[in-house]
């Protein structure tokens, strides 16, 4: 195993709905991501995976627990303040909704160059425009789109622009929250290939959040499964799909639609019954690098 880039320790986040009600979006979540790894987080809506991404990006303050990024405790205000430039440039976020993520009144060239300008980074290729053009080519877009506005682009192109903007900062950690969920099949394949290609080239670490298991299976090295703010299983991707241990993981895998009529119709999805498998306990290593939430267990993923 390589060096840790990100380590999350006993992270919890609680939303306050009103005076009487709070919701635990993250409940005692621990894991770590190695340098250069593509780490997937899967779960259904409301499981806390987006909250996790936001905590990692310092967009939300965790209620409890710590997050270490390159050894910096980013849940500590003082340390964040001291390392602000590094933290802001080396972590980048890509949203699902590339429509709302891009300012519709800015040209593509300006959108891509904006983070560089904000952080006063001298463009290595002479001008900001040249830099934007380079990044555009990099993500497979023609330079003729530089002067377009986001509404003139298709969904796949907008997602590419969002990726180009994130990559212009040469991040070491890229957090992507459902980046392909709103895209069509053929465009989704293009973007997934792009991610793979760019990751191999730059070697950035990738926190990839998704609900589509087949996408995660294709792209990720390791996968974490979440439900109701709890991390229930973490394993290398092949092992998770071949040997799921937690009942919820099993239910999720059995419900994953398979594009093969004969096979698909022969399957009956198992239903996860929270009463039968309580979401308590701690992660236990069942085989090398494979952790499952077990009652009474104790270990660190």
């Amino acid at each position, binding site marked *: 195993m390589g060096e840790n880039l990100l380590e999350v320790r006993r992270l919890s986040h609680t939303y306050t709905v009103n005076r009487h009600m709070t919701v635990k979006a993250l409940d005692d979540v621990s894991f770590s991501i190695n340098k250069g790894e593509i780490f997937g987080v899967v779960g259904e809506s409301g499981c*806390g995976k987006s909250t996790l991404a936001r905590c990692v990006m310092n967009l939300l303050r965790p209620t409890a627990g710590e997050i270490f990024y390159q050894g910096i405790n980013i849940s500590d205000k003082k340390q964040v303040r001291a390392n602000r430039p590094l933290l802001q440039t080396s972590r980048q976020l890509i949203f699902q909704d590339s429509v709302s993520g891009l300012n519709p009144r800015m040209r593509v060239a300006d959108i891509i160059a904006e983070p560089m300008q904000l952080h006063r980074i001298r463009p290595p290729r002479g001008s900001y425009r040249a830099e934007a053009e380079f990044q555009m080519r990099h993500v497979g877009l023609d330079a003729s789109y530089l002067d377009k506005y986001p509404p003139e682009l298709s969904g796949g192109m907008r997602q590419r622009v969002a990726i180009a903007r994130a990559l212009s900062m040469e991040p070491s950690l890229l957090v992507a929250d459902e980046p392909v969920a709103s895209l069509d099949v053929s465009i989704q394949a293009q973007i997934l290939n792009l991610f793979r290609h760019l990751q191999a080239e730059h070697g950035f670490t990738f926190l990839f959040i998704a609900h589509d298991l087949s996408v995660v299976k294709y792209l990720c090295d390791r996968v974490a499964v979440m439900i109701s703010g709890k991390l229930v299983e973490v394993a290398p991707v092949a092992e998770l799909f071949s040997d799921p241990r937690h009942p919820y993981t099993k239910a999720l895998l059995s419900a994953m639609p398979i594009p093969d009529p004969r096979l698909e119709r022969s399957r009956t999805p198992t239903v996860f019954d929270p009463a039968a498998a309580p979401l308590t306990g701690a992660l236990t290593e069942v085989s090398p690098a494979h952790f499952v939430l077990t009652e009474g267990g104790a270990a660190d993923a």
Partner: protein
Amino acid sequence: MRSRVFTLGKNLLIFALSLAILSVAVFYVARLAPGDPLASYYGSRVEKLTPEARFAAEERLGLHDPIIVQYFKWLRGALRGDFGISFQYKRPVVEVIGGRIGNTLALGGIGFALTFALALLLGVFCAGHEDTFLDKLICKVGTVTGCIPEFWLSLVLILIFDIYLGLLPGSGAYSVGKADDLGDRAAHLLLPLAVVVLGHLWYYAYMIRNRMLEEIRADYVLLAKSVGLPDRKILFRHCLRNCMPTYLSIMAISVPHIIGGTYIVETVFSYPGVGTLSYESARYQDYNMLMVLTLLTGAVVILCNLVAQTVNARIDPRGRAAETEVTADVR
């Protein structure tokens, strides 16, 4: 239950605090304005006063005390229900206002009701006939009419109906000697009323139209249509119903808007209402009158806003439920 009491208490506190702040501000600002308060008390006689007599008169009205002292003197009286006398009318302020408020309530109240009834009708009609000729016509006419300043519209109407045609009276609340004639009063009300309604109607009609269109384009309308519910039923049973919270809160918020409009209209038509009174009191440094009128208007405005908030929270099942269960889709 406890939370309801809490909310009520909180609202009352907000209400009292806002009024207190308002009263201080008006008290201070009114005294900054140039002009001679004695002029309104003594009329043209003020010019003939000897400096000594003038000083004595000012002393009697308490104008020599520091502003803070004046304010607390006023406040002590006000809390006991004594708002002082009007410099101009030399009668207790409350009495003067009481004699006039009926006129304003008639003009403002009927104007308000008419504005909103018509706005709802027009709004729903236009939304139901979106992009037809009539819809476009109404929207265009509305845009143009809504842009005309009220005082100018008033003058034009007076010119046409009173001066050229002689059909309707253009000033006052009743003809001399006909104070008890309801028909005469109604005739005097018509032109000011028309201005109040025409000045505000379009904006609200347009708001309702857009809100209705938002509902009409919702998915549930498509579903209802697809199972064969008649359009009219969908429009009235669902869309209109769902617009009601917005409608009611717009209504509550717009009260000050319409009050403001009424004041201008009253002044142009020399209609003896509270609006003319507040204009005069500001013009002639009638401090006591100005205080009461401003506070009265302020109280109505704040009250309406609080009502709007409460109505909104009560009428929507999502708002009602938010107090008891979790609805937020927490991701």
